[in-house]
């Protein structure tokens, strides 16, 4: 934790690495930036190093994100980012993995075989963002109906609006 740099300040410098991936800090929390190819092997390393469980897995769609992305040197920003959080019980430490996933090929390796606890959350991320987790045993929609078209949490998925009808008050509305 001590040898890491502050993400916001020094992104031009060569970042320190941990588990073979660039390490940054976000508000004091450790973040690893593996690429898509090393996503699964980094998780395997975490598992081998006694990280107890995957607590969270989700994605972010950076389509309409306006400020400059704060990423360590060597990491190219892409439209999607898959985020997985891990915890280890022996030290109470937490770490997060963030991998860039391009819009034209939204696929990444599944972590199901290493941490089966991400089963539903990978399905949820697929359901909401259309990111394909390769190697997942049953990548199907989980929250939306099976025949749903589109991926609701993508930024270009329109948010439904129900128009409000204003009616004249009872008795003609004239005073």
């Amino acid at each position, binding site marked *: 934790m001590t040898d890491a740099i502050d993400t916001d300040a020094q992104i031009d410098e060569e970042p320190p690495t941990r588990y073979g991936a660039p390490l940054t800090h976000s508000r004091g929390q450790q973040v690893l930036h593996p690429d898509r190819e090393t996503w699964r092997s980094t998780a395997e390393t975490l598992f081998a190093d006694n990280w107890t469980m995957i*607590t969270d897995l989700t994605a972010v769609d950076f389509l309409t994100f306006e400020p400059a992305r*704060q990423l360590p040197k060597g990491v190219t920003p892409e439209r999607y980012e898959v985020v997985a959080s891990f915890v280890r019980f022996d030290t109470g430490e937490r770490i997060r993995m963030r991998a860039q996933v391009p819009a034209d090929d939204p696929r990444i390796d599944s972590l199901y*075989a290493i941490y*089966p*606890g991400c*089963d539903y959350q990978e399905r949820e991320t697929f359901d*909401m963002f259309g990111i394909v987790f390769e190697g997942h045993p049953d990548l199907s929609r989980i929250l939306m109906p099976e025949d749903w078209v589109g991926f609701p949490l993508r930024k270009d998925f329109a948010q439904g609006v129900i128009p409000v009808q204003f009616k004249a008050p009872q008795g003609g509305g004239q005073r």
Partner: protein
Amino acid sequence: MTVTPEKIGSEETSATPTARATRTPDPEGGQLDRLPRRHAVLRMSEVQAAELADAPLDDENEQTMLVNMGPSHPSTHGVLRLMLEMDGEIVRRSKPVIGYLHTGMEKTGESLTFLQGGTNVTRMDYAAPLFNELVFSLATEKLLEVDIPPRATWIRMLMCEINRIASHLLFMATNGMDLGAVSMMIYGWREREQVLRFLEKVTGLRMNHNYIRPGGVAADLPDGWRDDVLFLLDMLPPRLAEYDILMSGQPIWRERLQGVGVLAAEEALALSVTGPLLRSTGIARDMRRDEPYLAYDDVDFDVLVGTRGDSYDCYAIRLNEIRESMRIVRQILDKMPSGDYRVQDTKVTPPPRARIDESMEALIHHFKIFTEGFKVPEGEVYVAVESPRGELGCYLVSDGSPTPYRMHIRAPSLVNLQCLPHKMADGLVADAVASISSVDPIMGEVDR
């Protein structure tokens, strides 16, 4: 329970090729040995299930039957639907089908300001709404890098522990009802209502409080709050003793729960199960003790663990966690500091009501905060708290505007639901009800 008349082929004599294809694959080189009962996870789509309706009956070979349980079934706590593959009365494989309560709350969260976000997240786990508000507020404060005053911290702790009592009382009621102790439903509800009455007095609402907000809490505790809390602390112990007479020591109750829906510690860890369910398997993990947030390192309490991981342990742990929460509440009564109940940072906090009558600037400031909201510096954080159901997390991404760019809630109910097929594997369908009940899923949180 609706029993569909169709029969499907057993695994050996599969009636259709689709049924065979849905068996859980076994990827090479993984860690799936930790889940010895993973064959019990049914992977079957609605289309595949519908196709099997036409499968011919085969009296020569053994066939299993696909039974649909829920989504509106009294023991499924709302709208959980289970697809059960039955061999007579034995559940072989099962699949929880969820999404019936999905309203896109994470999408909604992207269009509400950080100030309005509390009203959205509080509706997720409706049995423990204050925890949702707490985790959202903690994440926002982490992004803002503001420290809240000690009194606000202790008020949050007090309210959350009282909410935990209410949530576990609800579990007592529904668990009793699911397993045939129907009078328990009335008792549990009666006590929970008393607890909610206190929450209503403080926040104005029985549920969905929007009381814990970024920067502190919405209002200070009302006059006489101490007496109200003491009333609860006096009222509950004899009632909990009644529960012990009615359930804990009673042979029928024990027979019904002991050894039913067993989950091994290794399975629970592999499936990312947290909360009382993980503790029932013997793993002493409680974020209040292991990663103290708020002021939990200033109070004494025990982390309760089970030994067998069965439904009885789940029940006993929750019953005794009510007592532990009361112990914490008593200490909070002694240690409640005086001071401000919200941070006096004009960026985050609206001016006091009285100032608005005197000062034009205060009026403008008040108007701005409630129309535009306050800006949160860009960044991303993951914050987690120990809710009555396990690790409740909030992942926030801010782009520097007054609304979150992405708001994700790590719902313990959703993740814990993954253990259901494992718990129910090769058990009776009657015991499936006990397993569902001991997982205690809140569907509003599962589907969000």
